């Protein structure tokens, strides 16, 4: 018989209403055998006591229902952003609040490359730069020329729509004073200032410096980095919410996640737009059959509109408060309707990106039509982001069995901007309406969309509980939820949207032994301190991974 391990903890928050709190959890074969006190495993025979977490609080392992594998790949490159971040090794990268320290960090990276034997023309790529918060002059090519005259230096801005590069990089892209290409910015004297705006202008340089996140994201080191980020943040199951998933990538994913020392269960979603429409459902079903314990396949991602902060989300009246035109459809609504029907009819679960409320309406209408034609009782199609869904739409979603994964982190990162520039106060204060969602009985998850905002489920919970923006204001206090509800949203709630709540999301007998080990319970601390709770490690399928 397999060994039984009884983990002792300062406290166990189970998310199981039958026994909300405990001190011990018994694990056998990677699954939870019993929960309770020190005697909980007695009736199952002997158990070995493990006191690794004796001083920790255990919660169910966190479930991040909307992230991208690229979040791991980014850490191949130095970070030069405004906010503190932890890398995959758990090292703190302090936020840089002025240009001088950005240059200093880049100089250090340049020196490190030289010390590592990189040729002087090898490009230096850095990411996360956010000029919005810098009060000094704008970063330009001449600042970056101080870093290197020979090495192309490329500083990607945090929103991925802009980069600032040095002269060597401009040369590499063959951009000159004579270049007259939209997005290749010039100063008032007509000189290139080093700023490249939007993907097209960045494209020639990205090709030539060989930074290819598509390739990076499917490679083992990135998958391992993704796992390391998860471990640090208490996450034991995470999506890669838009993947091409050719057979070779699936094989890599299955191999890497299947290793005994890999701490994360990954749930990749097939990007529907990457193949002809009739092939999506058959491929999704084929992928579902390739699922392993640690790589769960079969879901599909579909993107309807753009982003609110980029003014590309599809909004209902009254549109953008700054007068910007309505956003764009990434897929024609009638095409979305046809695809949603086809996938629904084939019993393929969909995760549908809808940022603006008009896009959410199109998705809900399409699911309603599909459901009328092909009844499927437990589809759990999930609207991803759903940031402008109002109470009336939640009622329709409830009636149709649609779940939602709200972008709680937006409140802190973009809330002020939404009030002032994008959608105005009336709709901003009910953005990411967690309270309305729960009150209407719609299954709720909340997410980071890492790397768009950093992966940290406790931070995401903090956002949903407090709704504090960067300016310190509380945006839409009526939509705040209780810490216990937020904890459910990052565990059982997110597991429900992945159709995994029967296996993970709570600490109760029969489920997989996935835990987050914390230094305090999110239910006991001041709600404003939830984001500051330290993560000691995770248990995934009974295996212990310490930070």
């Amino acid at each position, binding site marked *: 018989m397999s060994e039984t391990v009884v983990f002792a903890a300062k406290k166990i928050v189970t998310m199981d209403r039958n026994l909300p709190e405990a001190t011990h959890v018994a694990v056998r074969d990677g699954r939870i055998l019993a929960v309770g006190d020190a005697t909980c495993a007695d009736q199952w025979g002997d158990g070995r006591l493990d006191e690794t977490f004796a001083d920790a609080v255990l919660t169910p392992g966190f479930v991040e229902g909307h992230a991208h594998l690229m979040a791991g790949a980014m850490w191949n490159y130095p970070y030069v952003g405004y906010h503190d971040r932890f890398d995959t090794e758990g090292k703190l990268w302090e936020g840089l609040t002025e240009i001088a320290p950005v240059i200093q960090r880049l100089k250090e990276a340049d020196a490190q490359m030289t010390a590592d034997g990189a040729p002087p023309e090898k490009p230096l790529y850095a990411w996360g730069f956010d000029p919005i918060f810098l009060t000094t002059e704008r970063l330009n090519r001449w600042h970056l020329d101080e870093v290197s005259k020979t090495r192309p230096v490329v500083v990607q801005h945090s929103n991925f729509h802009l980069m600032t590069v040095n002269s060597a990089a401009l040369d590499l892209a*063959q951009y000159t004073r004579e270049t007259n*290409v939209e997005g290749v910015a010039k100063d008032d004297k007509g000189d290139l200032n080093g700023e490249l705006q939007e*993907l097209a*202008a960045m494209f020639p340089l990205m090709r030539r410096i060989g930074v290819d996140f598509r390739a990076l994201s499917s490679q083992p080191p990135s998958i391992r980095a993704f796992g390391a980020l998860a471990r640090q943040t208490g996450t034991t199951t995470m999506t890669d919410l838009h993947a091409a998933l050719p057979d070779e990538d699936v094989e890599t994913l299955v191999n890497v996640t299947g290793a005994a020392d890999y701490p994360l269960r990954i749930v990749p979603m097939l990007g529907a*737009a990457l*193949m002809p429409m009739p092939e999506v459902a058959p491929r999704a079903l084929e992928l579902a059959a390739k699922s392993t314990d640690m790589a769960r396949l079969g879901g599909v991602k579909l993107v309807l509109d753009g982003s609110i902060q980029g003014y590309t989300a599809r909004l209902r009246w009254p549109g953008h408060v700054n007068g910007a035109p309505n956003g764009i*459809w990434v897929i*024609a609504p*009638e095409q979305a309707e046809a695809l949603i029907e086809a996938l629904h009819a084939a019993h393929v679960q969909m995760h549908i990106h809808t940022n603006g409320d008009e896009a959410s309406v199109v998705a809900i209408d399409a699911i309603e039509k599909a459901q009328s034609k092909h009844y499927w009782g437990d589809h759990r199609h999930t609207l991803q982001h759903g940031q402008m869904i109002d109470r009336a739409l939640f009622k329709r979603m409830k009636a149709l069995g649609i779940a939602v994964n709200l972008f709680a982190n937006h409140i802190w990162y973009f809330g002020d901007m939404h009030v002032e520039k994008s959608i105005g106060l009336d709709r901003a204060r009910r953005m990411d309406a967690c309270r309305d969602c729960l009150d209407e009985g719609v299954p709720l998850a909340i997410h980071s969309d890492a790397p768009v905002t950093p992966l940290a489920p406790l931070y995401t919970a903090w956002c949903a509980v407090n709704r504090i923006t960067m300016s310190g204001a509380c945006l839409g206090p009526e939509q705040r939820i209780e810490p216990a509800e937020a904890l459910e949203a990052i565990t059982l709630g997110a597991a429900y949207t992945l159709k995994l709540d029967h296996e993970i999301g709570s600490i109760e007998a029969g489920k997989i032994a996935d835990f987050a080990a914390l230094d305090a319970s999110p239910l006991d601390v001041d709600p404003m301190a939830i984001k500051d709770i330290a993560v000691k490690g995770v248990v995934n399928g009974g295996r212990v991974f310490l930070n």
Partner: protein
Amino acid sequence: MTLRPLPVTVISGYLGAGKTSLVNHLLRNADGRRIMVMVNDFGELNIDADLLESETDDTITLSNGCICCTMGTELLYALGDAIDRRPRPDCLVIEASGVAQPEKIAAAAHAEPELRYCGIVSMADAANIAARIGDRMIGAQIADQLRVADLILVTKTDLAPLADATAAIRNISEAPVIEAPRGEAPVDLILDRPEADAPPAHDHDHHHDHDHAHDHGEMYRSWSTRGGTVDLGQLKALLKDPPPGLFRFKGRFRREDGGAVEAHLVGSTFETAPIADIEETRAVAIGFAPAFDPDDFARRWREVAR
């Protein structure tokens, strides 16, 4: 050896506007061009069966050397893959999705030195283009496709009058409108001609400073020249203020003051770039009949070249 930049033509238009018909027409009438077709989001490879030679999961090879593939990845990666393909195709045709923003694809062609912008062709179904433009949900994106077009093909004119469609289009775009009932339009208007720095083959018995005019039926006319040197200022002036009806112009020119330059124009978009010295100036122009008059153009050309 440096490869010639890959010319990119973007075909846009809403669902059912006839994009796939045009693609098949181009493939059928490639006329020696090795065309690579990339089909955007959700696109299917509906290539006429008689053109097929072989087919794999995501690539179709045609008996005339053309290839077609679905993107299978995001647009810019797919463009990168097309650039890296060897042998490099003569023309890249991107069949954009129904609500695509063709100018975003075109922007990459403008920015990337290994790509050359070869025009946006937008297609409109005569029977419903006016309604599409007015559609509350998709109207703005359909109008944008027309606004950025260098050439507009109106299809299904056997079912609905061209004049009504043109009237709706003219509120948005001044681009030339061609009637193409079954999505068929002259290939030379839509695709680059790779050897076109030489005059068309049937002209090759002439040489040295001779202009040549050709009438290609009711639709368009062409002009070509070789020899001489150009005044760069005059060349740019010509491209900035092209004569009526001129639609495409390309050439490689020896400069009066030494060196050489190449120029490309489609619609109202043009670019010039210095090149290594060449043996002989060659240029080709294509314009719509009747507005484009090769004789007038020849007179204008004499201000540019000596």
